[in-house]
């Protein structure tokens, strides 16, 4: 890289020198990036077994079917271009899913869908009719209030109930 020493191009020279020096010190080396193994070919897939394991539609379809045969379980705008907060939303979602799983223990028929509309956090769940309705309402009031206080935004639960889990196929 030929560096001209005329006074007009002084700034450019200096920056060019800086760049070339950084390149020079690492010339010939390649960075090595290491992460925890992601196992992307085993994520969210239930393996075919003997044929006695009931599986819902959600569980039966693999992640590459999202957008084609499945919808999204978590809907927010922070993955759009120019929006931030994707990581925080994901962490919130993980907490909410665990919270719902624990609070309504044994009653969830399927995964929870979390929708964010403006300020509102809408948690949609399909439940089994295992508890009498007044116990459901106790847990609903408790969850809405606690999550609202925790996330400082209104949280609404939309519950639908079923008699049993809907089995899509047996694997």
């Amino acid at each position, binding site marked *: 890289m030929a560096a001209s020493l005329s006074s007009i191009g002084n700034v450019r020279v200096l920056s060019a020198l800086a760049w070339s020096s950084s390149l020079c010190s690492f010339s010939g080396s390649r960075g090595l990036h290491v992460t925890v193994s992601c196992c992307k070919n085993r994520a969210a897939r239930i393996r075919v077994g003997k044929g006695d394991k009931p599986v819902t539609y959600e569980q039966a379809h693999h992640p590459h079917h999202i957008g084609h045969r499945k919808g999204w379980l978590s809907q927010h705008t922070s993955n759009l271009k120019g929006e931030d907060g994707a990581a925080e939303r994901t962490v919130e979602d993980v907490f909410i899913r665990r919270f719902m799983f624990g609070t309504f223990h044994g009653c969830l028929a399927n995964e929870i869908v979390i929708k964010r509309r403006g300020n509102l956090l809408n948690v949609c769940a399909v439940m089994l*009719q295992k508890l009498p*309705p*007044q*116990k*459901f*309402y*106790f*847990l*609903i*009031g*408790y*969850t*809405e*209030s*606690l999550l*609202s*206080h*925790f*996330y*400082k*935004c209104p949280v609404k*639960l*939309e*519950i*639908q*109930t079923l008699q049993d889990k809907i089995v899509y196929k047996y694997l």
Partner: protein
Amino acid sequence: MLFCLKRSLNEALKSCFSLSNRSREAVLEALASTVSRDPTAYPYQFQDDPYLSPRTSTEFKLFSLSQESGRSAAKYIVNNNPKLFTKDFAEPHIPCLMPETVSLRLEEVSEEALKERITLRKVTAAVDMYDQLLQAGTTVSMETTHSLLDLICLYSDRDPVQDGEPQTDDAEFGEELKKRKARVRRASDFLKFTWKENNNAERIFNLLPERDTRCYSALIRGMVKHGAYAKAFSMYTDMLNNRLTADVHIFNALISAAPDVRDKFNERWDLVAELLNQMNQQKVRPDLLTFNSVLKALRRCGFLAKTQALHTLNEMKALGIAPSLASYDHILAVFYKSASSAQNNTDLLQEVIAELEGRIFTCQDPDDVLFFSSAMRICLDSKDLELGYKIQSLVDVGENWRLLGDSFQQSIYYGRFFNLLCMMEHIDVVLKWYKQIIPSLYYPNPQGMRDLLQALDTDSRLDLLPSIWKDIKTLGHDNKPDLVEELLSLMAREKHSSEVQESFAACALDVKSVFDLRPSIEWSAASLSHITTLLLRANKTRQAWEMLQLFKSRNRVPSEGLLNNFLSVCHSDGDSQKAVQLVQLSAAFCLPTTWRLAKRALAEFELTEEQRAILSELETAGEPSD
């Protein structure tokens, strides 16, 4: 969807944009005004799911209370672990979603600590802190003393009930309850406290170096609230002796307590009049609550009430105070004593409704919510349908539905309205209202359903009975044997066309299956007979036969008419074996008509020798000797 637009969208938006200073929600309000109430929707506070929606009024209360208790459980956790909930994401800050300070922070003896205890409503702690301050010799400011006295008098020197701790009854409380004989005892009575002798409020009051009107006000109002009426009056005379003037709150409290300290009607009224005079002398301006207390006291003044009530109204008008719904409620109570049929003219009520037409109300007095149900009661007693409709249209104006009160009051109002409709209106209109108000606004009780059945009967729309049965099941009234029996008797009374008969038979089978599921319900002979008759009319002989077997197992006796009916059906079926069995059944019940049945059977059926023998035996056995 277009049918439920109350005003056209264009109109609404035009009105919105024509306002020069429109509020931020103007567009939303305009859109909201185009949509009327959806009578098929579940109540908004519940989830949109058939399993989770309430179907009776008990379920409604149960679900709302359990949701509320879930919320308070969450609040308890939030307030007791404030460190977990302090991270503030919200921009701008939302104060109601932050944990509240529930526990005391300031421990030292100071006025600040006293103020903190007052705001947190900790009565006993506040009193202790005050005593400590006095012992330490610090003077407490007048303002803080006022708030302390207010606090103690409001809660009658007891801590407000926190987290459902049960309060122990004392003996004097029981006595107070017995004294309130005129009033219906409700759960809220048990939550009221009585004023103890020489309690902290009085003690602190006596310790004060100088007492002003506000101190007296707190004490007097506390005494009246908690039932120490005579003491309140003596405290008032005390105050006058100290040459202080009372304020409007004191007078309101004393006027409402006047009927409790005098027994005769004229004495009561004289006391109220005297208080009003003194109010005038002390140049205290009366407000709406003053006049409402006067009217409420007049309700207990017997014959004086009518003239004086009208005088009071004139006074209100002269002072320019508009009467609220509570005032009108008291006046209606004075002029329309309950259930006396002599008051058949509704002129006064009509005038009142004409006066109130089209107005929008806000709640200005806690008794405002009783107006609508009393007005509807008067319409019901005098069977005035037009007036009932006018009252309902008044409820529909703007947000006046909020003044129908809590769910109990609301159910009383709609119950009476529906009763009036069933009595006076044509069935089509009744059914239109039925679809609109049930079950979204009102869950009818068995009496209400009976009124509906009556209305169906009057207008000969008995073909609708199976769908009414479905509603009875949904409302949870299928465990009320009287109601079900009435339904069955209406169905079984006459013969109808064949499709109707088919639907009745299906309904009867449904009733039977419901009763089978509940072994504790006692069948009556009438219900069993009706079901059997309905099944026979629809030619469901086999099921009818099973019903007859049920008679034996439930220890009920079938009627003569039923068995005759059955025999005729057997004859048309040509089933002689059944006929013989029928006669034998009748003999097993030792019915007096056995011989007649046997005779009929012998005459009408083709029988084998064996059958003939059995029947002749039964005939001769039962035949009355001449």
